[in-house]
């Protein structure tokens, strides 16, 4: 049964939105950290990659490899929160070790450090993929992409499977990302920690005069941004069923572009940018050719940086979050 042109289009919208929500979750990690320390956290995409490797390791340990009722559901919940905790802690630790001593250093120093951290992460991923576990192919080929077991079925949740449909996997994406975004918004807008995070972003000296431990608030921001990347890594792995030590580059580039497109430092901007990049990717894959897609995303990044560096929802002046 052939899909009509309109059905193809709408199916690509569904795919684009799902991928876009994953990109948005990663983009939030970029934008939060940028908002508070003006660092383009180059290693964020690679942290996301490590989250996926961590999750696959747990899958190997638990031995749950099929979508089989409660066992799979329980595993997914454990994977989501473990990976979030892992990535959050890792990001916090990197801030503590690498960025905290550089708080007063020029921003370029921070950026170069982040690029170095990115290399370290990629190599950790490469090493990790070579561990002699069955989920990593017995460690025979460290660099090869790894299969992530299909714990979530691809069948239709709504709609006709042969035509336009929202799959159970799309349901997983929205079921995880939407509540997380709402929780983040609530945290940033309505809690003391969230207000302190905004205060530190706007004037760290004044924040310290209020008794706010600026380093601790920045650390919390790294933790939360990293944890969102950890959640995203599990959703991504379950959606795509394959992970690789190099996947952080593309994911990072998509998410960074999304953050810049939406206006770096702006949380709603990161979500909007993520959805737009997700849709752009699926439309390009469908109507141009897949090999053009990365080029188009890069082109968007460059055009935004040249013509509207504050992005769609960003603040005009040199201000942030």
């Amino acid at each position, binding site marked *: 049964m052939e899909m009509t042109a309109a059905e193809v289009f709408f199916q690509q919208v569904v795919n684009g939105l799902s991928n876009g929500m994953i990109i948005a979750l990663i983009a939030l990690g970029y934008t939060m950290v940028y908002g508070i320390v003006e660092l383009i956290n180059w290693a964020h995409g690679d942290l996301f990659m490590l989250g996926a490797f961590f999750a696959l390791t747990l899958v190997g340990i638990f031995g749950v490899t099929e979508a089989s009722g409660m066992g799979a559901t329980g595993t997914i919940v454990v994977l989501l929160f473990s990976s979030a905790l892992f990535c959050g802690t890792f990001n916090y630790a990197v801030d503590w070790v690498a960025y905290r001593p550089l708080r007063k250093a020029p921003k370029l120093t921070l950026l170069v450090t982040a690029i170095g951290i990115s290399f370290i992460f990629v190599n950790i991923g490469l090493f990790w993929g070579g561990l002699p576990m069955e989920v990593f192919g017995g460690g025979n080929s460290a660099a090869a992409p790894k299969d992530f077991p299909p714990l979530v079925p691809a069948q239709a949740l709504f709609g006709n499977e042969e035509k336009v449909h929202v799959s159970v996997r799309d349901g997983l994406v929205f079921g995880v990302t939407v509540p997380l975004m709402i929780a983040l918004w609530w945290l940033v807008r309505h809690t003391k920690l969230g*207000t302190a995070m905004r*205060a530190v972003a706007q004037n760290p*000296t*004044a924040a*310290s*005069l209020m008794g706010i*431990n600026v380093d601790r608030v920045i650390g919390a921001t790294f933790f939360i941004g990293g944890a969102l990347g950890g959640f995203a890594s599990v959703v991504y792995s379950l959606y795509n069923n394959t992970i690789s030590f190099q996947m952080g580059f593309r994911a990072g580039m998509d998410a960074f572009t999304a953050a810049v497109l939406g206006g770096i430092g702006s949380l709603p901007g990161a979500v909007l940018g993520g959805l737009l990049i997700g849709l752009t990717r699926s439309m390009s894959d469908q109507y141009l050719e897949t090999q053009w897609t990365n080029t188009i995303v890069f082109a968007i990044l460059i055009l935004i940086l040249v013509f509207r560096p504050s992005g769609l929802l960003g603040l005009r002046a040199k201000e942030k979050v």
Partner: protein
Amino acid sequence: MSLLSVENLRAGYGAIDVLHGISIDVRKGEIVSLIGANGAGKTSTLMCISRVNRLRGGRIAFNGTDITPLPAHQVVKLGLAHVPEGRRIFPRLTVRENLEMGAFLRNDRDGIAKDMEDVFTLFPVLKERLAQLGGTLSGGEQQMLAIGRALMSRPTMLMMDEPSMGIAPLLVARIFDAVRELRSRGMTILLVEQNARAALKFSDRGYVLETGNVVLSDTGAALLASPRVREAYLGE
């Protein structure tokens, strides 16, 4: 016994020394002014006292505690609040959130609500602006917000750095009224002012700073009468 005691404070930026051994004492309940020309080191002195800036020597004690080794965020806990130069309010937090950040270290909801009402009796305009972003206030209103925010920590001593800078004269009078009102409630105040005459008039004592050194210190009245002060700072 003095509430704040600064002994032989030295500090600087990069290769340059800016403060060359400043000693200042403030006793409980006093208003003390620090006056001096632009660039004399008044702001640097306050930033060192609140431990934002590093010291290159000397010792600072507040309420009997040596605060020299403390980070800035631990000083306000001891009861010393700082209204910094240029106000430094949080421009994209609402007025209410700005005041709440002033009470960051406190958890007594009722006490915080009561102190916020106190701030409104001092500066009624802030109550009308509660939901507005700090950055949308006028300069004078921002100064009131900065003072109110500092009061929300329930300090025993307030340091104010040029609260009249860049503010319409009518509002300057309001702010000086508020300073007097705080004083009458028993607040200890260290005031930095370019407007030396206004400051010395209601100060118990004052220090005159010149290029990083204290060159004169006396009661407010004596300084107002001193030929040196009259010539250099009162334009006579």
